C-alpha cells in the first residue's frame, strides 16, 4: 500500500514538473513584459515583476506599428480560416459521400502532396504571384491556402465518414438536396472537427513566417511574425521590448486554443488512428 502511494506521489511530481516546464516560458515572458530594463537584468526570470510597469508596451507601440501588425495578421488568419472551413467541407463531403469518376485518384493526389515540403513550392509560388502582380498584397498571403489544404480536406473527410448514413438517406427521401444535407445535417454534426480545423488553420496562419517574409515588403502588409523578426534584428539590445513583442504575439493563440482545446484533444484521436 505504501509503495503504491510513493509511486503515485512520484508520478505526480514528474507530471507536475513536466507541466511546469511546458508553461514556464510563457509565464516568464509575460512576467518579463512587465519589468523595466534594470529589473529584467537584476532579478531572476521567475521573480514577479514588482512594481509592474507598462512602459515596455508603451515603448513597443510608440516605436512600432504593433497594432497594424496584429490587424494585418488577423485579416489574413480570419480570411484563410473561413475559406478553409467552407472549401474543405465542400470537398470533404464529395470525397466522403459522392461517387464520381476520378474520386480516388484525386483524393490520393491531395493526400500525397502532404509530403511535399513547403520550401519546394515556394520559389515557383513566388513566381506565380509576381506574374499576377500580387507581390506585397493580402491576396498573395491569403490565396495559396484559402481554398483548402490537403490536410484540412483529409481531416474533415475522415470525420464525415464516421457520421451514419441513415440521417442523410432519410433526408434524401424527403427530397433534400446535397446542399441542404451538407448545411442542415453534416455541418451541425461536425462542430468538433470544424473547431479543430479552424483552430489549427488559424494557428498555422498566425505563426507562418517563411511565406510572408518572401511576398511582403511594405508596412502595409507586415504581419506579426515578419514584424517581430525585424524588430529582433533592430532592437536586439532592448531585450525588454523584444520580449514584450513576443508575449503580445503569443497570447492571442493561447486564448484561441483554450477556447477550443476540448475539441482539439478529442479529434486528435481521429487523425492519428485512421
Amino acid at each position, binding site marked *: 500500500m505504501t509503495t503504491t502511494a510513493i509511486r503515485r506521489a512520484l508520478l505526480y511530481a514528474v507530471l507536475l514538473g513536466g507541466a511546469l516546464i511546458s508553461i514556464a516560458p510563457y509565464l516568464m515572458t509575460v512576467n518579463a513584459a512587465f519589468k523595466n530594463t534594470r529589473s529584467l537584468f537584476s532579478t531572476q526570470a521567475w521573480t514577479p515583476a514588482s512594481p509592474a510597469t507598462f512602459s515596455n508596451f508603451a515603448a513597443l507601440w510608440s516605436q512600432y506599428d504593433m497594432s497594424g501588425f496584429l490587424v494585418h495578421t488577423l485579416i489574413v488568419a480570419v480570411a484563410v480560416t473561413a475559406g478553409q472551413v467552407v472549401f474543405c467541407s465542400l470537398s470533404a463531403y464529395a470525397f466522403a459521400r459522392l461517387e464520381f469518376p476520378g474520386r480516388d485518384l484525386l483524393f490520393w493526389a491531395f493526400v500525397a*502532396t502532404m509530403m*511535399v515540403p513547403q520550401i519546394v513550392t515556394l520559389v*515557383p509560388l513566388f513566381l506565380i504571384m509576381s506574374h499576377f502582380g500580387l507581390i506585397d498584397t493580402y491576396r498573395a498571403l491569403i490565396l495559396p491556402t484559402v481554398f*483548402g489544404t490537403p490536410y484540412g480536406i483529409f481531416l474533415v473527410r475522415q470525420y464525415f465518414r464516421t457520421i451514419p448514413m441513415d440521417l442523410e*438517406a432519410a433526408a434524401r427521401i424527403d427530397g433534400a438536396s446535397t446542399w441542404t444535407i451538407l448545411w442542415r445535417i453534416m455541418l451541425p454534426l461536425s462542430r468538433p472537427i470544424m473547431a479543430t480545423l479552424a483552430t489549427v488553420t488559424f494557428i498555422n496562419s498566425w505563426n507562418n513566417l517563411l511565406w510572408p517574409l518572401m511576398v511582403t515588403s511594405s508596412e502595409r502588409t507586415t504581419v506579426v511574425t515578419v514584424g517581430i523578426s525585424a524588430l529582433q534584428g533592430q532592437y536586439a539590445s532592448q531585450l525588454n521590448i523584444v520580449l514584450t513583442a513576443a508575449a503580445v504575439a503569443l497570447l492571442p493563440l493561447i486564448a484561441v486554443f483554450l477556447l477550443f482545446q476540448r475539441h482539439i484533444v478529442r479529434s486528435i484521436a481521429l487523425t492519428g*488512428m485512421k
Partner: protein
Amino acid sequence: MTDNREGLTTAPARPGDGPAAPTRERPFAGRPARSRRPRRRNLRRTVEAYLLIGPSLVGFLLFLVAPILGVFALSLFSWNLIGTPQFVGLANYRRLASDGEAWHALTNTVYYVLLNIPLQTVLALALAIALNRKLRGGKVLRVLFVLPWMAMPVALGIIWNWAFDPRSGVVDHLLSLVGITGPNWLTSTGWAMPVIASVNIWQYTGYTMLFLLAGLQAIPQHLNEAASMDGVNAAQRFFKITLPLLRPSMFFVLVTNVIGSFQLFDTVFVMTQGGPGDSTTTMNYYIYQQAFQFFHAGYAATLAIVLFALILLVTAGQFLYFRKRTVYDFS
C-alpha cells in the same frame, strides 16, 4: 423531386462507410426511373461532385501542383528572380555535387532530426503512459502539456535566446545553483544545434503525446490484465504487448514529425541565422539563402528537389519498416 430521390441510390455503398450501407439500395431497386436515365443521372452527380471540389481543386492545381512541376523546370534554369531565366541544362545539379556548403546543410539537417525525433518520441511516450490512467487533474495536465504546441516559433526563438543568454538567461542561473558554468550556448558551434533542437522538443512533445495517448487508449485493457495474471512482468508487457499494439500511432507520429523536422527554418532564422559559422544552417535555411539572399533561384529549386527526394526516401523507408510488421485489429 425524383432526381433527389435517385440521389439516394447513388450514395457510395462501400464497406466501412457505416452500418447503413447494405440496406441503402434496396428500397429503390425496382423503380423504373433508376434504369431509364442512368447516364444523365451519372452526369448530374459527377457535375455536382466537381462543383463541390471545384474551388479546392483550382487552388490545388494552381498553388500546389503547378509549383511542384515548376520547381523541376526551374532547376534547369539560372535565374536571379528578376531578369530572364537562362536555360542551363543540368548545370545546377553538377554544381550541387561540388557544393560543400550544401552537403554541410544536409548533414546539419540530419543531425537535427536525429537529435529531435528520438528524444521527443521517447519523452512523449513516457508522458502518454503516465497519463493513460485515472488521475485526478489528468485532463488539466494534458492541456498544459499541449500548450507549447501553438507557440509562434519566431516568438519562441526570442524567448529561447533570452533563456540561454549568458548574462540574464534562466538556464545559466539554474545551472549556477548547482555550481555549473554554462557554455556560451548559442555562440558555440557545438551547442547551438542542440539548443535549437530543445526548442522544438519543448514545443512538440505534448502534441506528439496526444496521438500516442489516443493509441494507448485504443489498446484493450484485458490483454495487459491477462498477461499480468500469467505472471508477465511490466517490462515484458511493455515491449511485447503495448509497443507492438501502438504501431499505428507510432507510425503516424514518426512519419509526420520526421517530415516536419526536415523542414526546420523559423527557429534557425530567428535564433542563429544559420550560425555560428554554418553550424545551424539547415537545408531549408540554405535554400532560403540561395533563393532570396543570393538570388540563385534555379539552384535553390535544385536544392529543394534534393530535400524533397530525401524526405520521400525516408518516408518510404518508414512505410516499409512498419508495413512488414503485423497490424492487429480489435474492432
